[in-house]
């Protein structure tokens, strides 16, 4: 008779890092970009109007799995918000994709009006 299969060892969630070695911590205030402020505001409005609760956001962030460690703070909280709003049928995937395409199109700036940064170093 063969050996029984090993019992899978459950892993703790990606957020549950108490007691782990944190390594070097960057304590410099990075400030907030425009989109980060907008994302914070949207999150605040969604919670303030009882559309979502904070515990749901925590859970959808934990559900990011390996992405939890890979993403930066605002990317994580915003992805969690996005996934939660889709999960709760408040926005649809189609709706979201269409809106993102629409917004992306606004940034199709003609070459002559392109910023110096995007044009790259002068030749």
């Amino acid at each position, binding site marked *: 008779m063969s050996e029984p299969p090993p019992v899978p060892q*459950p*892993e*703790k*969630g990606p957020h*549950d890092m*108490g*007691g782990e070695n944190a390594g070097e911590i960057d304590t410099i205030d990075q400030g907030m970009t425009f989109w980060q402020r907008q994302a914070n505001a949207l999150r605040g409005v969604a919670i303030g109007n009882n559309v979502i*609760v904070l*515990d*749901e956001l*925590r*859970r959808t962030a*934990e559900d990011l799995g390996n992405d939890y460690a890979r993403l930066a703070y605002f990317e994580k909280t915003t992805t969690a918000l996005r996934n939660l709003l889709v999960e*709760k049928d408040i926005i649809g995937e189609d709706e979201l994709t269409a809106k993102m395409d629409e917004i992306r199109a606004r940034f199709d700036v003609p070459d002559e009006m392109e910023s110096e940064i995007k044009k790259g170093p002068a030749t």
Partner: protein
Amino acid sequence: MSAFQTVTPVPDHHFDIGDQVTIKRGHPPGHRRTPDYIRGKTGEIERICGVFPNPEELAYGFDGLPGRVLYRVKFKQTHVWPGYTGPDTDIIEMEIFEHWLEPA
């Protein structure tokens, strides 16, 4: 009665201040509000915080009712962390819901 009560009346609770409790072990799936490093450790009830909707249910869009009793539990750091080098009197306090506690 003062407008600022330090103790929330909790009619039904299993543990009282000073009781020794052990935190449940294991890794149940889902949103759990008790960090891994405190599971299986034994501490003392420091206070009864009150009754709150269960965040482990709220996390999935439910109302979390009936509310669960939340306690503040006091642990010795030397007990929580193997090889802890600080004073033996150092403690960590953590707020833990009743359904995570067992009599020690």
